[in-house]
């Protein structure tokens, strides 16, 4: 059948006839191999796939934009340039608006429950809506810990403290929230964040501790919250559905098992790693980490609710089930954080 041959053509088979049953899987992402998503998620997952494949599966891994930038990873899988890719719905909010729900504030409690909740949402609710129409199948999904406000001007303890800050935002929803809280939302390319911050072009950003090493925030940040819930980053590793269907059953089983195992491993890894990073930064850096009091936190979360509501209603108006997805994701997060 035609689909099968196409899938096979796309995977390079370097071995001779005696081992032609080996399946080569090409996995692509945009992150350097040293990024924590890679060390805690992608790399152990790939190892596990090859282990479960018992020699029948060989993974060719293309990290760090080797096959394309973040925004084109979906097209890369659709076009079978790679078989599997890291697809972050928030990077392509135009194409996958519902799946970008992971970026909504106040929902994700921590990476463990957030990853379980997002994985469930992706597999059970979002698959039909936004993955299948794009001819991809999500293998696993996860989230980071919730984002914190990090800056070098003053501690942000109440929402009014945001006013006047210049904050680098990474997606549309963050931009909207910051804008309405009196922040100058600045978009700058990732590579420029460090120098821009250093010279005062921006005062801070929204980020979870997890991403600090990539931007070396420990040497420029001064104040960071630890318990805010401003946003989170959701990621999926998705496979081209045709390619998936071309794989023999045992290969599918191995990939699937490894994928479902990694969700918890990744979530726990993130939480543990952030704890260690925090300890390290408290000792080695001049950053002041502070906890928002319970009533203030409640206030923040109340202020954030209208953004979620607006997000959902805008989607509803376009005929996408925004409210339904938002409620489900809320429900799953609560379910898993107990």
């Amino acid at each position: 059948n035609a689909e099968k041959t196409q899938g096979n053509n796309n995977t390079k088979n370097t071995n001779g006839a005696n081992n032609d049953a080996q399946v080569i899987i090409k996995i692509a992402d945009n992150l350097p191999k040293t990024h924590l998503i890679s060390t805690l998620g992608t790399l152990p997952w790939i190892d596990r796939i090859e282990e479960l494949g018992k020699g029948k599966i060989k993974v060719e891994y293309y990290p760090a934009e080797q096959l394309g930038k973040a925004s084109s990873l979906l097209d890369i899988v659709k076009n079978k340039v790679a078989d599997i890719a890291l697809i972050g719905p928030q990077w392509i909010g135009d194409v996958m608006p519902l799946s970008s729900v992971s970026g909504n504030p106040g929902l994700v409690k921590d990476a463990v429950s957030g990853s379980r909740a997002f994985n469930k949402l992706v597999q059970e609710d979002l698959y039909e809506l936004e993955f299948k129409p794009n001819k991809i199948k999500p293998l696993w999904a996860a989230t980071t810990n919730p984002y914190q406000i990090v800056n070098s001007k003053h501690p942000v303890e109440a929402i009014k403290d945001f006013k006047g800050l210049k904050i680098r935002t990474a997606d549309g929803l963050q931009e909207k929230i910051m804008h309405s809280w009196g922040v100058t939302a600045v978009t700058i390319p990732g590579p420029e964040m460090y120098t821009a911050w250093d010279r005062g072009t921006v005062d801070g950003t929204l980020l979870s501790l997890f991403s600090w090493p990539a931007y070396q925030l420990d040497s420029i940040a001064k104040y960071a919250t630890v318990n805010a819930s401003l946003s989170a980053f959701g990621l999926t590793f998705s496979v081209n559905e045709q390619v998936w269907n071309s794989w023999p059953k045992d290969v599918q089983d191995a990939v699937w098992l490894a994928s479902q195992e990694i969700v918890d491993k990744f979530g726990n890894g993130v939480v543990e790693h952030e704890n260690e990073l925090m300890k390290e930064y408290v000792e080695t850096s001049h950053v002041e980490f502070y906890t928002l009091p319970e009533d203030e936190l409640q206030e923040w979360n109340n202020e954030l609710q209208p953004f979620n509501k607006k997000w959902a209603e805008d989607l509803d108006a376009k005929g996408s089930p925004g409210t339904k997805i938002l409620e489900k994701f809320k429900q799953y997060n609560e379910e898993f954080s107990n």
Partner: protein
Amino acid sequence: MIVAIPLILLLLFIATGMPIAFSMAISGAVGLILIGGLDLFLGIAQTTPYENAAVFLFTTIPMFILMAELMTASNMTKDLFYASNKWLGHLPGGLGIATVLAGAGLGAISGSSTAAAATLATSAVPEMKKYGYKTHFAMGVASMSGTLAIMIPPSIVLILYGIITETGVGGLLIAGIIPGILTALGYMVTIYFWVKRKPDVAPKLVEKPSISERFRSLKTVWPALILMTVVIGGIYSGIVTSTEAGAFGAFATIVIALSMRRLTFKNTQNAFQRTLKSTAMIMTIIIGAMIFGYFLTVSQVTQDVIHIIVDSGMSKWLVLTFVVILYLILGVFMDQVAILILTLPFTFPLMISLGFNPIWFGIIVTKTAEIGLVTPPVGMNVFVASGAAGVSTSEGFRGVTRFVIADLIILLILILFPFLSTWLPGMMMN
């Protein structure tokens, strides 16, 4: 070896006069089709052109070129070189030395070599030619001085290295200062000896101008000086990022030139058209280079070579030698950013495990990238400079030979004396 076919095609196309962008894109396409079938190529062809044009960082290319074109259109460049000639013209290759200085100054504003080379070629090459310098000499100086922009901070290459390898960006940028100055000095020494041995490439002022004549020449350079102050001040005070600096500089040029009544509608529009000409040429080559780069990635030839080096168990200095040679060879074919993305995930852990310093390795990689920018057949800076100055590429490549030798010597010095790269960041970061 399927991998060899596209490489041979690339050389053949380039050597027989196919435009560089098409040479890279078409040989890359052939490679992608051979390895992964037509589907793979069609997929790459769908996303690559758009995703490499819609990049904010690349706005530096049209904006810095526009600034240079406007400076030229309003005679600021001419005045600057007139004064430089009064002050440095009696030295062997004096205007060449002035251009190296201009390149270092531009390097402190711009993080992109391509933009810097185009800027210098647009402004300096016609001026040097006017004062009687040979074309290939002028082209060599402009192409080389442009490479300074990726060593002297800010630098896109060093920032990218920092991000990919999670090495401190602050330290890396500071680390580029001494090697950048060393490189600029190396170019000046090269110019000096070149002109000493071949006096016909660069004329010398017969008489050293008097002190008063020299100071009089400065009267005309204040617009350019104000402009430099505004742009450098804008960057270091945090008003603009180094990506935005080109736009800011172009705007400031227009303001200054208009206030001096030095711009007409005609020469302004001409500057915009020339800007687009250089930009389209550069961006088309970048897109072609990316397509070829994807072929190299998918073929896994680089990874295979690195694995052979890793598995061989040779001494760390031998490994370093091979890695440096690999970077120099890749620099012959590929765009610098593509090289970093392709190789660092493999070479960086290897070098660190052998006990090399991450900042120092960053500087070495940047130095090889500088060299790769001017070596044929794919010497981005030479293409860009040739295009911008309207000069043939062979004149460009002819002009860089001596400088490449100087660069190789500087590379060797940087390898042998790691403290040149690590001392300053160590001092300033504590």
